[in-house]
């Protein structure tokens, strides 16, 4: 095996797999992160893919990347990669900028053909020299040749052989990171259980990759990642979108209300529809409607009929759903709206990430139409916050908008599958029999939460009409009286405010003597946390809080923030949450770190941004 001197122990590593869309980079990356997770690593993954489904092979625009971080204290897929796997010259050229200065490149030297170099717009025939890569830090693996030699006797044609190229690269990576290939083989065997010949070919290629690394490149630094202690349990790998879908199913199980999704395909939210459509096997009714408006409207109908009703979308779809959401505010029906934010405005950057729908979620409706706005902070947190969104909707009889984003929706993490008792029962605000007998009216409220009651069609005696017109506070009959309208507006507002009564308080991290607090919300959590960690390690005293409950905020939120001399809000927009806080904290200067490039923050951007503010 490896000589001890070659092994470089580190906390975490970042590997970026880059190639054509058809190169199987995501599978290779997933296998690598999963075998790491099995031995206790934390994992975080992020796909970076073009909007085009299949750009020309070998072209610069057709490269897609898949970044994986594994190890201890992993909260992000990493700013830059320790190792870049490039399957062709185009991938090498477009992805080199994501590699650390002392990082290692693994690439297929057989792909450096004149045709490929031309497609990738190289000026010379030597990409390594042209890109200025240190020859000591690049492994030029003749992947195609190795592949052909390994599979010479397999009877496979060239096209079928090439499909295993990703396994060759993965074999090299397993060697580089001191991971036995046996763990990968187990997974491949399960994946290709019905195709033993395919399994055999992939297994051979994987071993060939490992052997190649071992035999020819033993001078390369080999990394050993220290593993971390995780909470005992059964784990799987989830993306944010899958976790969102599952959180809703959990809420359905814990509330006894069947789950209905009315949706329309839109990047990057469509995987929620895909997952819930599959989950007919758990009784979910997921329907694809004719447009975004029909998506939310069918959900409103299903909510009226007594289902946990959900619609999933992204920014442009949220705009189309505005009027429908307003109806749910007015009719006081439970409704969960998932907005997977992407670059805007208009069609914008459909596959890229942003936090630019905050104001739309908070205020994007006609009239005084307050509702609950939540944000998930990581792929696995999507499960928890989808559950929370459903719980609040059904217990408080209100629409809830859950904001996620392309980054956490497509990224993945290892996730402990909850046990039966990990999540509480949800108590939907269903009309109790005794109230019905006492002459219940549809907009009667309980005095504590101010929520009206959910009377399900099919219930004898509870026939009632709801709708978009204003109702009289006392009689529940439609009313245009001005004083009554103001009372109803204030009541609906107060109903949302009272959700805060049950929210967990704000408790900043790294709080010891800090007079500066870094504040974020939603999917930037991992990057902000890592940055604060670094800042404190360097001796800067910076506290940190990431908001998940945006409207209402926990009761102690503003008082807690007020205590700090400096409040710095970092977000992927031009300052929406900062403006929102500024409105609530008049006279307090809110400092800002902003980025609107369609990409997540880099940790160093936040570290530098905070330092710059502190220097002033």
């Amino acid at each position, binding site marked *: 095996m490896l000589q001890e001197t070659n092994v470089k122990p580190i906390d975490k590593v970042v590997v970026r797999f880059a190639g054509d869309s058809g190169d199987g980079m995501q599978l290779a990356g997933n296998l690598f992160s999963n075998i790491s997770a099995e031995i206790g690593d934390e994992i975080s993954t992020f796909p970076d893919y073009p909007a085009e489904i299949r750009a020309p092979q070998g072209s610069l625009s057709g490269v897609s990347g898949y970044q994986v971080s594994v190890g201890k204290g992993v909260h992000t897929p990493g700013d830059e990669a320790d190792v870049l796997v490039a399957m062709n010259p185009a991938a090498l050229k477009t992805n080199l900028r994501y590699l650390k200065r002392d990082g290692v490149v693994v690439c297929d030297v057989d792909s450096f053909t004149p045709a490929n170099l031309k497609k990738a717009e190289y000026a010379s025939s030597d990409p390594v020299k042209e890109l200025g890569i240190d020859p000591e830090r690049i492994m030029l693996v003749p992947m195609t040749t190795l592949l052909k030699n390994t599979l010479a006797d397999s009877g496979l044609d060239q096209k079928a052989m090439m499909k295993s190229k990703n396994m060759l690269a993965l074999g090299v990576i397993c060697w580089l990171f001191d991971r036995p290939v046996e763990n990968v083989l187990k*997974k491949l065997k399960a994946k290709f259980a019905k195709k033993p010949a395919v399994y055999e070919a992939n297994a051979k290629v994987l071993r060939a990759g490992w052997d190649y690394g071992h035999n020819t490149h033993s001078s390369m630094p080999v990394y050993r990642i220290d593993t971390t202690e995780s909470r005992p349990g059964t784990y799987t790998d989830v993306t944010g979108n899958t976790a969102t879908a599952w959180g809703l199913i959990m809420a359905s199980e814990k509330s006894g209300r069947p789950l*209905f999704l009315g949706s329309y395909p839109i990047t990057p939210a469509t995987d929620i529809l895909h997952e819930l459509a599959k989950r007919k096997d758990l009784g979910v009714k997921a329907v694809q409607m004719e447009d975004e408006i029909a998506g939310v*409207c069918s959900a409103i*109908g*299903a909510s*009226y*009929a*007594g289902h946990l009703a959900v619609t999933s979308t992204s920014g442009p779809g949220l705009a189309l759903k505005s009027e429908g959401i307003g109806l749910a505010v007015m009719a006081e029906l439970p409704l969960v709206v998932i907005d997977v934010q992407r670059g805007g405005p208009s069609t914008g950057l459909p596959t890229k990430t942003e936090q630019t729908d905050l104001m739309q979620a908070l205020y994007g409706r006609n009239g005084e139409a307050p509702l609950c706005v939540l944000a998930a902070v990581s792929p696995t947190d999507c499960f928890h916050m989808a559950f929370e969104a459903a719980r609040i909707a059904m217990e408080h009889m209100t629409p809830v908008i859950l904001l996620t984003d392309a980054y956490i929706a497509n990224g993945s993490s290892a996730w402990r599958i909850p046990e039966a008792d990990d999540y509480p029962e949800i108590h939907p605000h269903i009309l109790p029999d005794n109230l019905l007998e006492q002459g219940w009216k549809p907009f009667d409220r309980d005095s504590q939460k101010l929520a009206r009651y959910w009377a399900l069609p099919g219930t004898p*005696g509870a026939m009632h009409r709801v709708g978009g017109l204003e109702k009289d506070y006392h009689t529940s009959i439609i009313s245009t009286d001005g004083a009554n309208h103001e009372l109803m507006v204030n009541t609906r507002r107060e109903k949302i405010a009272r959700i805060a009564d049950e929210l967990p308080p704000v408790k900043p991290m790294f709080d010891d003597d800090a007079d500066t607090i870094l504040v974020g919300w939603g999917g930037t959590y991992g990057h902000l946390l890592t940055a604060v960690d670094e800042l404190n390690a360097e001796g800067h005293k910076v506290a940190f809080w990431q908001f998940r409950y945006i409207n209402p905020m926990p009761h102690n939120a503003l008082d807690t923030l007020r205590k700090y001399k400096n409040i710095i809000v970092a977000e992927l927009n031009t300052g929406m949450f900062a403006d929102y806080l500024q409105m609530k904290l008049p006279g307090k200067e809110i400092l800002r770190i902003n980025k609107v490039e369609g990409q997540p923050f880099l940790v160093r951007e936040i570290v530098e941004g905070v330092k710059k503010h502190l220097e002033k």
Partner: protein
Amino acid sequence: MEQNENKAYVASDYKSSQNARWCPGCGDHAILNVLHKAMAELGVAPHDTAVISGIGCSSRLPYYMNTYGMHTIHGRAAAIATGVKTANPDLTVWQISGDGDGLAIGGNHFIHAVRRNVDINILILNNKIYGLTKGQYSPTSDRGTVSKSSPYGTVEDPFIPAELCFGARGNFFARSYDTALDTSRQVMVAAARHKGAAVVEILQNCVIFNDGIHSYFADKEKRADHTILLRHGEKMLFGANNSKGLVQEGFGLKAVTIGEDGYTIDDVLVHDAHCRDNFLQQQLAMMDGHELPLALGVIRDFDALVYDREVDRQTREIKEKKGYSNLRDMILKTHETWEIK
């Protein structure tokens, strides 16, 4: 739609305590009363009935029903009704829309609800005008209609609701008009008994902004010659004393007087509402009351697979086949997992 065997319902069981606030003389009053009667005849309990409307004069109707109901937003009644029915197929769901709500702003939802064949009863109350916004032309207004928003006459052709319904592969279409109380009741009952999306066009008079738009066929003295009431399995006869009939000529229909020009009762077509091929049904539905009489009654009533029942069936079958006890069980059985101790 479960028949309630324990109780016979009467029209007043479906009537709410609120007084209808439509203009005096509005056709909607008659349609509301007929709907109460049709529901009593059907015998579906008020608590198993939901009435969903959009926005417009006719969309106020749910407030006057003692059933479950929702007065929603402009154009979206079909989408919301689809959600109600798909979530709970045991409810009998009615959609009330005007020509603007159902066919202009709600046109997309209308065609898709019909195409999907969701088991909802769609009543289109067609007065060929926007009433609640005080008199603009609608997508069913005839070319040349003078209105507040078309002071020099419209320069666009209208939708014929029946044609749109057939174009969306509709399996049920019926027609009546506001003062034809018996026909309206019959077609509402037939629509509710039909499994699948049932479109009923009720031509309705707006006394304020479009008064008399339907007079050319609906006035007492014009009805006999300008309308024909179709009944499945019966000869297509109309006119005073049923002296006239419809015959097929070439690719089209022709109105003839029996005993004249050599036509006998044997030449007159027999209506087949249940025929899968909708060619002749479409021809009948397109008759406009001028050269050929306006067709009333059930024009098409063909059984096909019903969306909400299919969603329900597929969900139940797959759930049963896979047999997962809950989310955790599904994940453990279908996803790659690992233990950390």
